[in-house]
C-alpha cells in the first residue's frame, strides 16, 4: 500500500513538472514567434513568388554580387536546421558561421543580429523548431566569379577592421530598428566592397531603391508621429501612396505586428 502511494505521488509530481515545462516551452515559442516576426525571418526564408513552403528557403535575393538563395530553416534534420544545437544557432546568428564552420555571406544580416540577446535567439529557435519540418535541399548561390569562401573570409576580416559596427544604443527602439528589424541592411548605403557606411546611417541605398529614412529633410525629418505609425501599421505613405515590394513585405510580416509599445519605441527612436 505504502509503495502504491509513493508511486502515485511520484507520478503526480512528474505530471506537474512536465506541465510546468510545457508551459515554459509554450511561453518561449510565443515569445519566439513575436521576435521572429520582428526580425522578418519569413520574408527571406520563404519563396513566396513560387508558392514555396514556409521557411524552406529557396528565395532568390538579387544583388550586385549575384543571386543569393536563402536556406531552409525548418526543423528538418537532413535539409534544414533540425540537428542544430542552441550554440550552433547562436553562432550562426551573431557570427554568421554555420555549424560545419562555413561562413555566411552578409546577405544574411548577422552583422545586425550580433547584438541580439541570447534569450531572444533561443526563443526564435524554439519557435522555428515548433514549425513543420520541410525536406527541401538548399540551392547553391549564383555569384560573381570572384566570390568564394576564401574571398568571403577576407571580406569579413576587412569588414571587422575597417567598417564601423552596426549601431545599437541599448534602447528598445534601437533593438527593433538596428538589431531585429535590421533596417540598416537596406537603408544604409554601402561602399564598393559592400560594407555598410555607418557614418551615413539610414541615408538610403539607391542600388536597392531603399529611401533615406534618416531624420534629415530628405528623409523622415518632416514626418509626424501619426504618419510614421500609419507607415509601420498599414504601409501608408504621407502622400497617400503605399509602400511596395520588399518594404510591403516588411510591413505585412513584421512592423504591422509590433505591439503598441514597440511601435512607440521605434517612432521615438527614429525621431531622435
Amino acid at each position, binding site marked *: 500500500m505504502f509503495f502504491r502511494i509513493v508511486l502515485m505521488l511520484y507520478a503526480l509530481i512528474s505530471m506537474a513538472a512536465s506541465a510546468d515545462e510545457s508551459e515554459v516551452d509554450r511561453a518561449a515559442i510565443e515569445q519566439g514567434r513575436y521576435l521572429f516576426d520582428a526580425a522578418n525571418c519569413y520574408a527571406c526564408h520563404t519563396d*513566396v*513568388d513560387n508558392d514555396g513552403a514556409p521557411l524552406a528557403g529557396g528565395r532568390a535575393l538579387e544583388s550586385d554580387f549575384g543571386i543569393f538563395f536563402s536556406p531552409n530553416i525548418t526543423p528538418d534534420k537532413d535539409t534544414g536546421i533540425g540537428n542544430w544545437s542552441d550554440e550552433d544557432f547562436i553562432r550562426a546568428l551573431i557570427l554568421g558561421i554555420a555549424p560545419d564552420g562555413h561562413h555566411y555571406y552578409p546577405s544574411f544580416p548577422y552583422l545586425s543580429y550580433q547584438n541580439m540577446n541570447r534569450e531572444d535567439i533561443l526563443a526564435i529557435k524554439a519557435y522555428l523548431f515548433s514549425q513543420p519540418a520541410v525536406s527541401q535541399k538548399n540551392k547553391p548561390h549564383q555569384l560573381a566569379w570572384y566570390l568564394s569562401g576564401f574571398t568571403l573570409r577576407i571580406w569579413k576580416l576587412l569588414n571587422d577592421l575597417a567598417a564601423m559596427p552596426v549601431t545599437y544604443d541599448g534602447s528598445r527602439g534601437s533593438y527593433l530598428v538596428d538589431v531585429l528589424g535590421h533596417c540598416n541592411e537596406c537603408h544604409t548605403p554601402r561602399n564598393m566592397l559592400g560594407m555598410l557606411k555607418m557614418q551615413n546611417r539610414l541615408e538610403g541605398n*539607391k542600388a*536597392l*531603391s*531603399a*529611401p533615406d529614412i534618416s531624420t534629415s529633410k530628405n528623409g523622415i525629418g518632416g514626418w509626424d508621429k501619426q504618419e510614421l505609425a*500609419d507607415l509601420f*501599421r*498599414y*504601409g*501608408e505613405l504621407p*502622400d*497617400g*501612396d*503605399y*509602400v*511596395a*515590394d*520588399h*518594404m*510591403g*513585405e516588411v*510591413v*505585412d510580416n513584421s512592423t*504591422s505586428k509590433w505591439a503598441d509599445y514597440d511601435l512607440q519605441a521605434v517612432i521615438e527612436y527614429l525621431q531622435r
Partner: protein
Amino acid sequence: MKNIISLFIGLSLTTAVNLHAQAEEYEPEDLIEYRQEVMGAIKGHNKAVKAILEGKVPYDGHLDMHMASLEALLGRAGELFPEGSDFGETNAKDAVWDNPDKFKQSVEKAQNAFASFQSVLAKGDNSASLDAYKKFGKASCGDCHKSFKKKDD
C-alpha cells in the same frame, strides 16, 4: 437562360479580345502613362477621403464623390495592364503578366476591401470609418503593391 449565359460569355470574350487588340494598336509608353495617371487619381481620391475623415478639411459633402470615383476606378484597375505594357518607364513588376491569376485575385481583394470599407462608412461612425479606411488601404493598395509594384528609384 442558356441563351443569356451564352450572350454574357460571348460579350465578355469580345470585350477581352477587343481590349487585347486595342492594346496592341497603341504605344506602350502611352498605355503606361495612362495607367500611372489613373493610379495617381486613385491615390488622390484616397488621400482626399482620409483628409475628410480626419476632419482636416470642411468637405464632408465631397465624401460620396470620392468614394464613387474610387469604386469606379478600382473596378477597372485590372484593365490597365494589357500585354505589351510591361516594359519602359513602369514600376509594375513582371509578376503582373507572369502570374495573371494572382494579379486578378489581388485586384479582386482590393475591390472586396473597398466594399467592406464602404459598409463601415455607411454606418456613420467617424472613428470606425477612419480605422476601416486604414485597413482598406493596407488590404487593397498595400497588398497589390507588395507583390506587383517595384519600389521607386
